[in-house]
């Protein structure tokens, strides 16, 4: 499966033309987001809704619901016990050099043999081999 990082979800919501062309070439059933990304997006929207000033509160709550509907369009890959074991290994090897969410996504990709689609390839260098990484924003489909 193609496992989308949060930045790819952002560009899908923005209708990025290169991403659009990549998505046209694959099956939607082969695209998924990890629960890590679901958690990050909902955390942001929930905090916005709960902390919004009165004049922005209605908008913030409406965006939370719209974003939930948006996330529901995606297949979701669960971070499970097997992922947790891989994450523990990754954490031991990379200590504080890598971001924790990136390591969580890496663990999900390693367990499911998924390809991580991200614009931030450098964040995953050293975590995943080249054939498990793809950039659907800066590189046109062949």
């Amino acid at each position, binding site marked *: 499966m193609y496992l989308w990082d949060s930045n790819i979800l952002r560009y899908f919501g923005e209708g990025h033309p290169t991403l659009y062309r990549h998505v046209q070439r694959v099956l939607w059933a082969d695209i998924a987001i990890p629960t890590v990304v679901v958690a990050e997006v909902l955390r942001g929207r929930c905090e916005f809704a709960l902390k919004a000033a009165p004049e922005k509160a209605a908008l913030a709550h*409406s965006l939370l619901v719209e974003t939930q509907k948006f996330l529901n369009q995606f297949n979701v890959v669960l971070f499970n016990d097997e992922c947790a074991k891989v994450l523990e290994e990754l954490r031991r090897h990379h200590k504080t050099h890598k*971001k924790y969410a990136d390591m969580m996504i890496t663990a999900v990709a390693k367990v499911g043999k998924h390809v991580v689609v991200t614009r931030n390839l450098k964040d995953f260098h050293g975590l995943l081999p080249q054939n498990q990484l793809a950039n659907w924003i800066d590189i046109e489909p062949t």
Partner: protein
Amino acid sequence: MKYTIMLKEDNGHIQATVPALPECVVKAPTRSEAIRTIRKAISDIISRTEIIQIDVNAEPKSGTLLHDTPWEWCGAFKNDPTWGELFDDIERRRTPYQE
């Protein structure tokens, strides 16, 4: 109630669609005309619509995959200024593990 509208240039016309109401599609020569027409179209649909919730005694099969590409959501947040901020904040908050 607020609805998200997608405006797309289409052969010299502006096509307006509503992601939340897939059957609601209008085309007009100008942007303002498209917005005026889609507002009326939404109002027409909503005035004829009853929204209810029902319980269905069935669970989806585990492992069922979503197959249809939801193109109506591609670009759905293009005009939302908070969308970019949301993801900038996600990037900022990605930090190494802290004991």
